[in-house]
């Protein structure tokens, strides 16, 4: 081991350059990447591995995939997961009605059954659902599998083949391999423990609420017309509210909504009155609102 001073891991001079490019590209598409996110995207690209993104609702998990597809000029194929999603809706389905029509149309002609059967299990009769579409696409694609934690366990197993080998096996047709391996992003709100097998195949990115600087940057990027000092106040208030013990913490998208609302109100500076009256943009539960209002009133020396 002594000679391991020779690093097996090449210090890569390109790396930091590529990461800067990623950040720049994502910013152009309206997404502010932290170093962490940019690094994850870089590694995922290099390793050709799916990225599993987890975090509280509204921190920009889905947005990440959208911006990524914009940056890579790739088509975004989205599979929204829900309970009871099955392979017919996610992978492929035989177009039963078309097959039936085809058989009826063939009835007059002298064709033996084997021939017909061969015909109707052709790719023409295959309805591509998002996963198959992503695999067979000629163009580069970003495949977003949204809220993977909502599907049943069995469906997760179905994804394993796609995630590790970028291929799908259809019994009647054989294995279809990806022409362009899609860039896969899975998002999860962690309402259920995902299986080890799935997690093993992915890189894991935990997205939390951003730190103050980044959140401020995001507000400035998305609501550029808002004066700087107001943006800062907004972010500070949101962060303070997040630290309180409330039912639903305000997410980034709610911060942005609120920032826009404040902007349209045309105030110069945030005061108690403004915060109180616009709180319903930020908070979605009556109890939460009462709690914040109360704190606001007790903390303010009028």
């Amino acid at each position, binding site marked *: 081991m002594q000679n391991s001073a020779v690093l097996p891991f090449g*210090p890569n001079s390109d790396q930091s350059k590529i990461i800067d490019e990623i950040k720049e590209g994502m910013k152009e598409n309206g997404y502010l990447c932290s170093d962490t996110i940019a690094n994850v995207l870089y*590694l995922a690209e290099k390793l050709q591995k799916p990225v599993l993104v987890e975090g509280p609702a509204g921190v920009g998990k889905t947005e990440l995939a959208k911006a990524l597809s914009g940056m890579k000029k790739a088509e975004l194929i989205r599979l929204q997961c829900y309970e009871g999603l099955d392979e017919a809706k996610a992978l492929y389905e035989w177009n039963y009605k078309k097959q039936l029509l085809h058989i009826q149309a063939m009835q007059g002609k002298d064709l033996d059954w084997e021939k017909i059967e061969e015909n109707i299990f052709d790719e023409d009769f295959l309805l591509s659902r998002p996963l198959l579409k992503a695999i067979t696409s000629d163009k580069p694609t970003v495949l977003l599998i949204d809220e993977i934690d909502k599907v049943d366990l069995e469906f997760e197993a179905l994804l394993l083949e796609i995630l590790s080998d970028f291929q799908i096996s259809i019994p009647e047709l054989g294995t279809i391999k990806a022409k362009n391996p899609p860039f896969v992003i899975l998002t999860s709100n962690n*309402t259920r423990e995902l299986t080890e097998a799935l997690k093993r195949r992915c890189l894991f990115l935990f997205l939390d609420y951003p*730190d103050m600087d980044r959140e401020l940057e995001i507000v400035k990027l998305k609501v550029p017309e808002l004066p700087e000092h107001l943006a800062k106040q907004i972010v500070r208030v949101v962060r303070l509210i997040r630290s309180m013990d409330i039912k639903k913490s305000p997410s980034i998208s709610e911060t942005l909504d609120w920032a826009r609302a404040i902007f349209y109100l045309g105030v110069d500076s945030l005061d108690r009155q403004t915060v109180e009256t616009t709180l319903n943009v930020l908070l979605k539960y009556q109890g939460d609102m009462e709690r914040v209002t109360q704190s606001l009133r007790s903390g303010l020396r009028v």
Partner: protein
Amino acid sequence: MEKQILGFINYLRKAGLPISVSETVDCFQALTHVSVFDKQAFKLALSITLVKDSVHLPIFEELFNLYFFGSAAQKAQELGIKPKDLNENFTYERPKNVEEFLERLDAAIENQDLNELSQLAEVAIDIQVDADQFSLIPGNLPGSGGSGSTAGEVLKKVNTLRALRQEEKNTGKIRIIEGLDSWLQPAEEEQMLNFFRAAVGEALQKRELNNRGLDLIERRIPNVNLQETDIITANYTQLEEMERAIKPLAKKLASRIAQKRKQARKGKVDIRSTLRRSLNTGGVPLDLRFKYPRPTKPELYLLCDVSISMTGFSAFALQLVYSIQNMFSKVKSFAFIDNTVEITDFFTNTDFNEALYRINREAKVVTGDGRSDYGKALVSFYQKYAPKIGSNSHIIILGDARNNRRPSEAWVLRELKSQVRRIYWLNPEPGNQWDTGDSIIGDYAKYCHSVYECRNIQQLSQVIPKLA
């Protein structure tokens, strides 16, 4: 280098992270694409390939810092395993004097920069007072600062310094905080200082161990692997850290169970939906659709042993059970040592530890010598509350069933079993200690629907969902 990383992975595994071989391979592959001189990229390459659960991220964070900067890192370097540059690149640029320290501290508080705060916490230990002069000892000299002082003392120093500085700056002027800031500023500052305080405590602990020449990682692993630490034998710091770990877990559990309840699929065939589906297949109902059952919510009765040995466990278990309380139409909790008292009203505020402490003082849970008497407690529960318990109820008992050789009065459970839907018992002792010594869990188990071993947080979080 490979060896060193494998060593690190080994520590992670010891700390309870399930890392497979294929993940190790991924990790090495990822490392070929990043420069080891870029700390952040290096760390990230390890974390995204090895850590697959957000619960494990803090563990990774701590072990990474210890391993690559701690005493283990030095040891590895002595053995020549580690490229020197790595360590140098990872060092933090310390403030050079007290003035700079304060400036950076203020900036970190204002910008809510947690990273900087925890770094500064380590520096804060090195502030020395000598005849009213504050000075900062440069570098991480062995035996310097830290040892002997407490977090409170360090903070006092820092606070004095900050106050002095504030005075100097304002000379005569009174700062008026107006408007919204009067709400924001104090709260923010308090939050950041709280974080800083915790960080100082942690830094002191590390320094202490380091000065004693102990292997930090080996020492920290039991504290870090909270998921698998026995609750009843845990020491104070471990309990404190568990306390911190359990809050997000409770939240997670709550949303998970709501989900599971919906997914439970057993029920009658839904004729309407099945027929609608059958149109696709020419009227043949190939695909059966089911109606999802809508189970009625049971009532929950929780009985907790709150004797000293059990308090920690009861606090955690209660906290987790309460996280799933919306699965029940009503939750009532009771505490006992040798007498059962209803304690539901103590939990209106959610600090469970405080509530349990108050219960021990204010509720009449002891009538005798202060040692557990399950028999008496059960009888008193039965007499006082049983008539009001409906048939659609779950009873959960938290305790080790160590009865100090008193009569078990297990007939109470037999009676209750015929009256309610479910009786569960959660026992924090390892299974092999059941029915040894004065433990009479076997007597009670006969009349329980299930008895679960709940030694640690991991087991607890697996069992709780089964109770709904």
